């Protein structure tokens, strides 16, 4: 039986994992202070790398630097998700008892929030704030303008710009 590309890839993958998974896991653990989360992110890092190289050869010149970059990006994402989740739970926790949504609704809203947050990522602070206040707080533009210390026209501009950004981010 001949050696297929798939076999070679499998071998490359196994080698990459064996050579790197230990230090990467330790590296993440030192940053996260938590073994379970660090292990999860270690796995995610390898999965991410494998997916990025699916169908190509897995010849990494600087595997360490590359893995650390990927892991670092995942780490930032992880904290971002966590901070959204935390803020969301805080809001939920302040609701009157009868308004607490079912677990399913809680989970769906959380996913939507994470998605929206991702979509708004990269907007300037003021643009984002103006957009959130208009879209979710339903504040009149005049109030937003006052709060941000900008003109009405600028608020309108911000909202339009945020929408263009969202459209570009939407898959």
């Amino acid at each position, binding site marked *: 039986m001949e050696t297929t590309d798939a076999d070679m890839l499998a071998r490359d993958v196994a080698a990459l994992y064996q050579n790197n998974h230990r230090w990467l896991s330790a590296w993440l653990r030192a940053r996260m202070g938590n073994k379970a989360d660090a292990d999860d992110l270690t796995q995610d890092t390898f999965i991410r790398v494998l997916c990025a190289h699916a169908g190509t050869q897995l010849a990494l010149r600087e595997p360490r630097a590359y893995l650390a970059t990927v892991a670092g990006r995942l780490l930032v994402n992880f904290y971002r998700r*966590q*901070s959204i989740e935390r803020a969301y739970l805080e809001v939920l926790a302040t609701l009157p008892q009868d308004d607490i949504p079912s677990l399913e609704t809680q989970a769906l*809203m*959380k996913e939507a*929030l994470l*998605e*929206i947050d991702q979509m708004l990522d990269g907007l300037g602070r003021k643009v984002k704030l103006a957009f*959130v206040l208009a*879209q979710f707080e339903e504040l009149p533009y005049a109030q937003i303008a006052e709060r941000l210390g900008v003109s009405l026209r600028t608020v309108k501009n911000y909202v339009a710009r945020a929408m263009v950004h969202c459209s570009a981010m939407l898959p």
Partner: protein
Amino acid sequence: MSKPSTPIEEAAFWYACLQAEDATERDHCRWQQWLDASPSNQQAWARIQEIRSLFEKVPGKFASPVLAQKKASRRAVLRGVAVVVCAGLAGAETWRRLPAQEWLADLRTGTGEQRREVLADGSLLYLNTHSAVDVAFSRDERAILLRAGEILIETRPDNAAGPARPFVVHTPHGRVRALGTRFVVRLYDGHSSVQVLQDAVEVSPVLSMAPAVRLVEGQEAVFDSRSTGMPRPQPAGAGAWREGRLSVVDMRLQDFVSELARYRKGYLGCAPELAGLRVSGVFPLDDTDKALAMLPDVFPVQVRYLTRYWAKVLPREARGDASL
């Protein structure tokens, strides 16, 4: 404003115009004309609607505070252990030798009770379920002795004349010194834990000669009488019990049930085969039956009550009469 050029830019511009409180009938007409002018405009508008439908999945009152929050400081969570000079043994002395006459109060809560106290200096003390503290304010120190359970402290600047007295929580395992702050201390059988909700604290185990360990906002750590564990990022929802809520992320069902059991009289258990299910969400603590009733919503479980005081989470029974 520079003239929008692509259809999506135009659509976004129209969206922003029509959202305005001063949008007129004329704006609507002009928008309609724009929309009718070309299929690519209609496509672009459909895309805007698609984005809006995503927004509508979350009511604004939830979305706005979450999305508008300042970026969480990653560094604050990641900050390591800072070294602070403070002799560890001082705590042990206080715990053992506090003269009885200094105990001004003795506060307790029963199972399922919570209590809020304003202390003599204006600081707030919240007792969680089944907790007990002694308040021991002296000339040198504003001390709380945690005897059982869990407390949340919101300190205020010392209002007494003279040099400001430190605010300190003592447990049998050590002392937690507030550095202008909001924090939670909980007493377990063999150890204590502390979660910092705001600012910072210093932890000194009674038998440790090592420098006090400083914890900052967003961190938690456990300590026993010999040492303090590595500060870790605290789970989301820490301290939510003060609001009468249990707030968890990815907690094992077994742990979740044990947590809930603290607030219930009698027995509350969980079938071992369900122990590993992961629970996320916010639950009411003032009505634990209600909290339990939320579980079957997303898990294949049922809650079985033998009496008011005996409840167990069990796998849902397969229904023989289920029809397809």
